[in-house]
């Protein structure tokens, strides 16, 4: 399926409830929902969970490589949001970006503490665990917008040279620094830095429609 590089929310208006506020186009989660959660609104919390849990669980599983541990981490993250939802800062990005960053950060922390406790570190599970599951299996609350966004990001990432993809994955999902990546791949440090810079620059350019107002 070929996707137009139009703003990611172009097909969304019909599927969402009426909302007079201009929404962050890249996120299916309204900042107001976070505010409700922060006020202790359990219903809002349920909504937030439905909208974000698949993405966050996917991320946690990719980093930790274990469903139980990923579920455990997700519970920790959501309870933190429930207690500290007020910490969300609209100026720093969309609610989804905030949740992704929070989840990634907690998962990498676990990964590191596990490594320091002498557990084996799973290298890349991209081709085993996650990919073994059927593709395009939207969760019950995934919207068209989610699907469209997923396709766009996937396509953009696939456009990067493999070496850049690898460097980005090792940093983002394995929590490795540029030096660690360089020694892991037995490549000069400068090469690794350049791969990450080029990869991110291209992703930024390709994905800009997702956060720029139409």
């Amino acid at each position, binding site marked *: 399926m070929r996707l137009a590089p139009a703003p990611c929310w172009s097909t969304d208006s019909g599927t969402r409830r009426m909302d007079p506020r201009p929404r962050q186009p890249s996120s299916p989660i309204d900042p107001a929902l976070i505010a409700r959660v922060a006020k202790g609104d359990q219903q809002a919390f349920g909504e937030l969970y439905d909208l974000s*849990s698949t993405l966050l669980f996917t991320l946690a*599983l990719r980093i930790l490589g274990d469903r139980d541990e990923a579920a455990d981490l997700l519970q920790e993250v959501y309870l933190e949001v429930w207690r500290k939802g007020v910490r969300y800062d609209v100026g720093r990005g969309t609610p989804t970006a905030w949740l992704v960053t929070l989840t990634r950060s907690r998962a990498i922390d676990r990964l590191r503490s596990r490594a320091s406790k002498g557990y084996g570190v799973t290298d890349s599970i991209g081709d085993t665990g996650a990919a073994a599951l059927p593709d395009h299996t939207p969760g019950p609350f995934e919207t068209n917008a989610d699907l469209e966004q997923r396709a766009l990001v996937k396509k953009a990432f696939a456009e990067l040279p493999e070496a850049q993809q690898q460097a980005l994955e090792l940093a983002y999902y394995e929590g490795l620094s540029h030096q660690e990546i360089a020694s892991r791949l037995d490549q000069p440090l400068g090469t690794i830095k350049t791969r990450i810079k080029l990869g991110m620059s291209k992703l930024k350019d390709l994905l800009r429609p997702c956060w720029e107002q139409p």
Partner: protein
Amino acid sequence: MEHEELEEILPLYVVGALDRQERQALDAHLLSGCPTCPAALKEYRAAASLLPYALSPNAPSDELKARMMEAIRASASEPAATQTARLPRLGPGAWLRHVIPPPPSWIPYPAITLVALLLLAGSWFYTLSIRSQVTTQADQRQRMETALHGETARIAALQKQVTEQEQLLAGLREEVAGRIGALTDLERVLAEREAELAQSRQQLAQREQGANSLRKALAQRDEMLTFLRSPTVQVISLAGSEMAKSAGALLLYEAESKQAFLYAFNMPPLPAGKTYQLWAIVDKPINAGTFGTDAGHKGRLIVRTIPDPARVAKFAVSLEPEGGRPQPTGEIYLAGQL
């Protein structure tokens, strides 16, 4: 690290690939109020946060949601003690309810929610603007503090200079005072010297007078010597009369120049208003000039033109009133002939 270097590593920052030192340097740079990096960072961060969408989706088990909802329900119905513990972290809405009591039930709940949401959004934007203001003000404050430090240092340096100049000035004043003192001394010395000079001038004048008289005397002696050396000089001796028995005189006559020189000795002191007068008596007495006497009772007279002694019957000296007379009127004191 410079801005350019830090801007370069923003992509590495958002995927967590920086080492701790680089991360801290970049954090500090972002806090320092860089005008371009935060915007670039926001875009990179947005791109990075989309990365998980590229993964094949995996939904958690339904059981997880049930567990989670149970957990939050439990935390919501926790006893008051736990609620109290939550108080410092109240969300904006809860905080609002805490400050403003719940409204009466006749106000529709959605309206309250809308108001609360508006307030919340407002407070977010306010917080954001305050945060940026605080950052800007902190920057300004830092700049001003730096400037202030610079100015303080400059003032200290200027004060030091002023002190040095004052010391210099004091030194100069002292020197000037010293010079003035020396000048006063000099003036006094000058006055003394001027007085001495005046005295010296006076002495010099006196000396000159003395010298003049000496010169005059010397000239007379020279003339007398000339007379004495001349081979043609004739000496006429004059003897004292009854008026001056011990007195005598020599009249030297030089025929070539027709000049004569009279040298008288043991002359009686002249009474006041009187003078001796020499006469050459040919047919009748001819005035040959007047002369006085000195402390040694000696008298001298040079006669520029005198008649030939061969034609002169007698030379005589008489006492006459001062200034002399055309013809002798007083007593004869000396007389002689060739």
